[in-house]
């Protein structure tokens, strides 16, 4: 039997000259640092979720009706009448939220260990493009069930483009194909969600990996293993601290996959709405342009950015500043390789100022998230008394956190460009592995 497989393999390889070398280049002879820790699971997990979204998405498409009159009913049809439809849909909705969980953690890893720094700037830029495409993909997917929160969420997000001076209103109509989110909007969002953006995402993922494998992976020590001593058990010319991606990291990632699936399955089977975070209560009501939900807010993964829109005040007769602030908060992440030019990559050997700043940045991000979810409206009165002026408290709190978010980038720029950072000595070789 093995002989048959070998012969088929030879037959294919003789006719496709690039295949075997490519497999070796990216799998068995891709030497990754041996000291990856917990933070290095999230890249492969993001790929797993992407595959999950595509596969479950294909099956959802078979029964979903992308029309304003049929969309909401067809989702209930999937939930009730399609065999295993409920499981496929919950895998897709839970996958959407977990996609952002793993991508946020993956990005944080990149920031923390300096994985965006030279020579990996392009890896980072491609990753940020993936993040942008993912946000667009998630937003359009959220509109498809055509619940009332889908409708009003679409209206609010599209209205962000309406703040552009002069062309705003026309731009808004152009995006929606109508004066309100309507059948035309749903049709085009469906097309973008199931065809256009997935293709873009897949292409970007391929480029992200190609760019990564060209320069090699970073690691928790931020040491360039390619610059270290040469020669390992497999190849005398390859980095001594590298091990073949396959089988070492494929089996290791399998453990990560197991833990991740345990958590995902727990949510899918026992808490698919996740208390209204992954599937919102108001989306159980069909879209209705006459009834506004009590609170309109995006899904949890957009709330930090949405909070920035709300916190930046209007000025000079336009509200575009909030929208610029939101896009700016993401644009600054794109520019990170040129903002943070400190020579030391890993947080392990960076200055105290960096550690403090990063901690504040993370706290600010979570606080903005809570604000965008309206959790502050719920908890501030409980903590500080029922009589407080919520709007005032929200604004003060939110603006402090917005300043902290942007302040992180300003600080990093000054800290590294002006040479204020006092770093620790970086070891020559990677230090640990588990």
């Amino acid at each position, binding site marked *: 039997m093995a002989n048959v497989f070998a012969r088929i393999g030879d037959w294919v390889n003789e006719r496709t000259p690039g295949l075997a070398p490519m497999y070796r280049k990216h799998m068995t002879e891709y030497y990754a640092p041996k000291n990856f820790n917990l933070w290095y699971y999230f890249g492969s997990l993001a790929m797993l979720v992407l595959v999950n979204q595509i596969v479950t998405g294909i099956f959802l498409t078979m029964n979903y009706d992308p029309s304003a009159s049929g969309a909401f009913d067809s989702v209930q049809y999937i939930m009730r009448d399609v065999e295993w439809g409920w499981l496929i849909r919950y895998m897709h909705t839970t996958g959407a939220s977990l996609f952002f969980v793993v991508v946020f953690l993956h990005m944080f890893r990149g920031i923390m260990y300096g994985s965006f720094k030279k020579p990996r700037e392009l890896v980072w830029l491609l990753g940020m493009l993936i993040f942008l495409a993912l946000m667009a993909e998630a937003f359009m997917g959220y509109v498809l069930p055509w619940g009332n929160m889908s409708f009003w969420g679409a209206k609010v997000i599209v209205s962000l483009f309406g703040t552009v001076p002069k062309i705003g209103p026309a731009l808004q109509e152009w995006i929606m194909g109508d004066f309100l989110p309507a059948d035309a909007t749903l049709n085009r969002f469906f097309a973008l969600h199931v065809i256009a953006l997935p293709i873009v995402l897949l292409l970007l993922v391929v480029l992200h990996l190609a760019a990564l494998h060209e320069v090699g992976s970073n690691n928790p020590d931020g040491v360039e293993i390619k610059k270290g001593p040469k020669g390992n058990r497999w190849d005398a010319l390859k980095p001594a601290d590298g091990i073949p991606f396959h089988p070492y990291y494929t089996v290791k990632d399998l453990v990560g996959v197991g833990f991740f699936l*345990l958590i995902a399955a*727990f949510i899918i089977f026992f808490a698919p709405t996740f208390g209204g975070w992954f599937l919102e*209560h108001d989306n159980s009501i069909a879209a209705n342009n006459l009834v506004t939900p009590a609170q309109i807010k995006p899904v949890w993964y957009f709330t930090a950015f949405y909070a920035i829109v709300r916190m930046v005040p209007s000025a000079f007769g336009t509200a575009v500043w909030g929208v610029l602030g939101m896009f700016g908060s993401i644009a600054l992440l794109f520019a990170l390789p040129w903002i943070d030019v400190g020579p030391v990559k890993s947080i392990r050997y960076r200055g105290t100022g960096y550690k403090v700043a990063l901690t504040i940045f993370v706290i600010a991000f979570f606080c903005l998230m809570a604000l965008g979810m309206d959790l502050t409206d719920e908890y501030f009165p409980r903590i500080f008394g029922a009589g407080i002026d919520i709007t005032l408290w929200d604004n003060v709190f939110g603006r402090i956190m917005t300043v902290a978010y942007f302040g992180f980038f300003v600080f990093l720029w000054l800290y590294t460009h002006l040479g204020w950072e006092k770093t620790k000595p970086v070891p020559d070789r990677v230090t640990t592995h588990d």
Partner: protein
Amino acid sequence: MTKPTLLTMSRLLMKRLLPAIVLAVGLLVAGQPAARAEGEGQLMASGANVRDQASLQRGARLFFNYCVGCHSLKYMRYSRIADDLGLTEQQVMHDLNFTGAKFQEPVISHMPPEDATKWFGKAPPDLSLEVSAKGADWVYTYLNTFYLDPKSPIGWNNTTLPNAAMPFPLWELQGEQVAVTKPGSDGVEKLDLAHPGKLTPAQYQQATRDLVNFLAYVSEPAAMQRHRYGVWVLLFLALFTMLAYLLKKEYWKDVH
């Protein structure tokens, strides 16, 4: 490097699995705000549990006796109710189906929406997804907070959904509650049972709990399957993870 044994496996459980589960559960508990209330006041706990089949059956009976005259369950088929609630086709068609629908058809009320709009000012909503939209506690509280209000055109009002257009069809079970207003204002302080109904307050609460339970089931019939399969999926994944971990250990033995 030690050989993987039961001891190392249990250590793995302690070290890796437990924190993950604790994290998941912690996130869950932290992330469980009750569905938003639309009215004032605290919501009562419904205690709805879709695994309680007897309660679901009682709730279904109540729904088809008191609610289906006005409210549809347009996403719910009679046949599915039979399957999930452990009832025979005969029982469902004879005891529950008063609309004349076929066994495979969904539960559609006979009330014409145009007439209903004339009568009540607003057509009674479909209740297929009511619990998903409002939460079981909200519906339970709503059904327990009707009171006589001479100022209302229909004679009833509700503290959970003030000025609701709905008359109170369960009045013969609960009796008639009246509002005790706060001195010097129109605000309702509490509700008093002025005339008892057929049921005691405790029995009425149980009846509404059953009804809400049935509506919770109707909101998501898949919950039955979720709970049934979920445990086995988690057990399989735990085993898979364990094996993957042992495989990783084996492969990584020679990495120093």
